[in-house]
Structures are given as structure tokens and as C-alpha cells.
């Protein structure tokens, strides 16, 4: 009986801690302003960031040369994004507050992807500059 109770409580705590951890990873990028270069490349113009931009940012990230330093966190946020999408889909009709929370989180993921893209572009530019100086 006690083991069953511990098991249920631990699983609930695990989900909550893991979601909050992912949130903290994404939120750490919240203060970073999006550069004009990223807005231009993603074709955003002056409009606000949208949830659907996440996929486009990821495609653009994959066009840039691989950068080992951010590969793990991009994969983690991609998984978190898919999880949020699923939660949002399930709870959209049942609990509107959860749906609005997932929407905020999804926006955070888009912002994270935009910042990651900006960093990759910066890295690529440095790479080309170094190559050019060698040649």
C-alpha cells in the first residue's frame, strides 16, 4: 500500500519537476531580444513571434553548419515542444487554462528556437570569416 502510494506520488512529482525543468531551460532565453537578422531570415517582418514559427526556425537551424554546443538543448526543447503540443491538444476542450498555459510555453519554445538560430548564424558567419582569412 505504502509502495503504491510512493509510486503514484513519485510519478506525479517526476512529471511536474521535469516539465518545470524544461520550462526553466526555455525561460532562460526569454530575456534575449530577437535580432533584426533573424526576423528577416524567418520572414517575420515586424509581427510578433507565433507558435507555428518553431518549425520554420528548426528548418533554418538545420541549414546552418552543425554546432555541437547546442545540439542537446535543441533536441530537448524539440521533445518538450512535442509534449506540450500533445498536452494542449488533449486539454484544449477540457481545461482551457491548461491550453492557454501550453500556448505560452509553446511561444517560449519558438523564442528559444529563434535565439538558437541567431547563435547558429553568428557561428556560421564567424566560421566563414575565419575561412576567408585563411584563404
Amino acid at each position, binding site marked *: 500500500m505504502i509502495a503504491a502510494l*510512493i*509510486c503514484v*506520488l*513519485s510519478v506525479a*512529482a*517526476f512529471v511536474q519537476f521535469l516539465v*518545470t525543468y524544461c520550462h*526553466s*531551460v526555455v525561460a*532562460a532565453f526569454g530575456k534575449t531580444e530577437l535580432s533584426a537578422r533573424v526576423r528577416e531570415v524567418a520572414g517575420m517582418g515586424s509581427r510578433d513571434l507565433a507558435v507555428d514559427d518553431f518549425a520554420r526556425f528548426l528548418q533554418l537551424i538545420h541549414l546552418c553548419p552543425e554546432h555541437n554546443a547546442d545540439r542537446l538543448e535543441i533536441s530537448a526543447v524539440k521533445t518538450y515542444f512535442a509534449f506540450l503540443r500533445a498536452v494542449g491538444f488533449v486539454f484544449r476542450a477540457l481545461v482551457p487554462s491548461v491550453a492557454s498555459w501550453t500556448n505560452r510555453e509553446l511561444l517560449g519554445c519558438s523564442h528559444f528556437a529563434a535565439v538558437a538560430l541567431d547563435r547558429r548564424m553568428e557561428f556560421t558567419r564567424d566560421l566563414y570569416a575565419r575561412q576567408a582569412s585563411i584563404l
Partner: protein
Amino acid sequence: MAGPTLYVVFLVLALLLEGAFVVCALCKREFLQYLPLNLYMLLCVVGNCGAYVCGRTWGIHSQEYFYSYYSSDILLSVLMYMVIAGLFSQVFEHTSFASYVRGAAGILFVATTFFALLSVRSSGQHMTTQFVVELEQDLNFVGVVLMYVLWGAVIKLRETRIRLVQVVLALGVYFSAVAGIYALRNLFPSIEDSLLRWMPAIIGLWLPLAWTYTFVRVPEDARLEPGHMLVTSH
């Protein structure tokens, strides 16, 4: 049952990640600043090396290996309470409760050490799988409760230091996962020889991985926007 190859893979991965954490702390000159975390990781390295030597000498299915593995794991769980106490004092450092927290952490550490040592000693040569599974389940569940209390304090005190927040949350993930797995093993002893047996070792990789990520990628002075970070507060 998973064989020695899988065991060596987990051991090497754990050693690499734990070593990477300590090396990062040394390179960034933050070893002393985060002493409990670094000491814990160093002792994990020692524990893993000891487990490797025992496994090689007596085999990973021997009684000697079983005893040394779980004894060191239980002692590391106790040491983890020291890490939690350190995190509590960091969260409460600017409040009037700081001295009480230190006192409570000291009492908790002594009480847990006493309880664990007494349990291991009383079991003596009769240390059974059922006994260690229950003890690990209880020790880790106390860890989950403590992490909830600490997380509550982080929310209440509007803590914004990203490093501290991520270290606390990673520890919460670790404790809840391990407590859940041991509870499952306790509930269903018949599936003891399945993947569940190796799950604590797999989950053990999470902590050095998450902490190394935090210390490499998040600068010491990085802050979250107040009120932005908490899933539970929405």
C-alpha cells in the same frame, strides 16, 4: 538480464559525466563555491570505481558486489542530503530563517546518517534485495518531499538565479524518478530482473548531465524574469 557489457557502458558514461562536472567546476574556478555538489560528484566517481573493481573481482551477480554497490549507494543518498542542505541554505541565505535552516539541515543529516547506518548494520550479512529496495525507496522519497519543500521556498521567495533553479529542479527529477522506480520494484518483485534493475543506473546519468549543462551553459549571474519561471504559479 542485461549483461556485463551494458553494466560497463553505464559505468563509463557515469564516470565521464561526473568527471566532466568536476573538471568544469575546476576550470571555471567554482569548485569551492559549489563544494557540496562537487564533493558529491567526486564521491560518485569513487563509488563507481569501487563498484567496477568489485564487479571485476567477484562478478556483478555476486553477493560481495551486491553488498558494496548498495552500501555505497545508500551512503551516497545520505550525502545527497548534505547537498540538499546546502541548497536550502543558498535559497534562504538572505532571510532571517538562515540559521534555523542550517540547524534543521544538520539535524536531518545526522538523523538520516544514523538511520541508514543502523539499517545497513542491522541487516549485516542478511542484506536482502527486498530490504535495500525498501530502504532506497524510503530514502529517495524523503528526498522528493525535501525537494518539494525547497521548490516551495524557491517559489515563495521569488528566487530568480537560473543556476540554482535548474540545480534544484534537476535534483527533483532525479529523486522522484529513483523513488518511483524503487517503489515499482518493491511492488512487483517478479519484474526485478527486467530493465527496472538497470533504471537507477540510467537515471543516475541524468544528474551529472543536467548539472554539467547548467554550469557550462548558464552564467553565474544569469537571472530569470520574476514570475516568469514557475509552471506551478500559473
